[in-house]
């Protein structure tokens, strides 16, 4: 499947929805409307959305919201959610204090 995406594709104007105020990423308090606007600003994949808005950059690292963000972005772009790759998984799997991280045992 071709991954080529023309970013100049016309998505039409931003039409406000009555649930735009809904919090989607609770760690970073990012709303549905902000995500929908970011797509209109050209952020067509989940990595760009994350970098643009900080969705999934908080304590839970997107554990809860990545599914929501994906379906919102997919809907804006007229895609099926599975067509959008999730953002990369990152170590550490859980938040860890620097002190602990620095104390290595072999």
């Amino acid at each position, binding site marked *: 499947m*071709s*991954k*080529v*995406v*023309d*970013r*100049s594709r016309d998505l039409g104007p931003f039409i406000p929805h009555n649930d735009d105020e809904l919090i989607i990423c609770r760690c*970073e308090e990012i709303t549905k409307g902000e995500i929908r606007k970011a797509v209109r*600003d*050209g*952020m*067509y*994949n989940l*990595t*760009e959305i994350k*970098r*643009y808005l*900080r969705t999934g*950059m*908080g*304590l839970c*690292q997107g554990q809860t919201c990545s599914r929501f963000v994906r379906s919102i972005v997919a809907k804006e772009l007229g895609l099926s959610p599975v067509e959008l790759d999730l953002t*990369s998984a*990152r*170590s*550490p799997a859980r*938040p*860890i*204090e*620097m*002190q602990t*991280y*620095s*104390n*290595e045992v072999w």
Partner: protein
Amino acid sequence: MIAMNNHAEVIIIGGGVIGCATAYNLAKKGVKSIVLEKYEIGYGGSSRNGGGVRQSARDPRELPLAMYGVEHLWPQLSEELGVDVEYCQKGNLRLAKTEAHLKILETLVESSRSSGLDVGMIGGDEARKICPYMSDEVIGASWCPTDGHANPMLTTLAFYKKARELGVRFITGENVREIRKLKGQARQVITDETIYEGDIILLAAGYESRAIANTVGIDIPVQRILLEALVTEVQPRMFDQMLGTAAADFYGHQAKHGSFVFGGSTGLEPYISEQYAPVTSSLTASSTCRGIIKYFPVLKDAKIVRTWAGWIDECADHVAVIDRVEEVPGLVLACGFSGHGFGISPTVGLLLSELVMNTAPTLDLSALRYNRFKAKA
């Protein structure tokens, strides 16, 4: 036949901060470009750097670019692009823990001062006055009050957003295979899917630039190296300075939203770039944490929420190649930024637009030419 909409005055290969900034500058001047990106906007070094907007400790060849940017471009960049790029101009501290470190810093300071930069050496206590959270291990530092930092990911996306609004066509997921010369001129860009054509081809594809340049017989001594960084959970506001060390083994700052972002190295990076995908090593984060705690004991309880690794392009002499290649008319190179291209990206975008349009350059770029690589006498 090249599809009509696959033709533009300039084809830019690479949707990183350099490609986006150049497309934006060109669009401002009415020059149409198409930007081709293999992955996503800001995939390479643009999202893999410490966010430093720094003039101090720059190579004299690129220092003027850094100084020009800090003076003329960074202060109003957020306003100009319509996105807060989190530019914070509160100075840069480069720390020393040993006499040897101090020597390194003194040399760097001397060099920068001779180019007209306001930078000087300060003692440990003075450094702690600027940044009270620093440990007593720091015995001195270089201090450049006009340095700062910004958010590299947002800056890249902001250039992209604005350029897109001005009509630049961005195509992601386009893997460039080849640059092809037609009638003596680099004109075509062949991708996996199609062919693009332009009067000028700008190659700004980070560590992938070398292989692409090779297709028109140009080689640039650039290799990829692995960079790793870590990010903490949000912390109370502690300091605004950009931080680095004389040994250049770690750097970082506290971002606007409160997380600390620190980069660090183990020295093994050049040897782990052969892997299939850029992934973090099992060693780096722990090593970086030890470094941070030595300098900033207060951060020992801060939690790391994520680490990342990525390749960046490293040039043989650690400074970028920015040039209109004489050998191949129509080809412009902008690569090999060696991990410090972000801070100078607004300037580079401006200069590249001039280079592409063949207009009078704002700054002299002759020290960054492609043909500078010669064997030592």
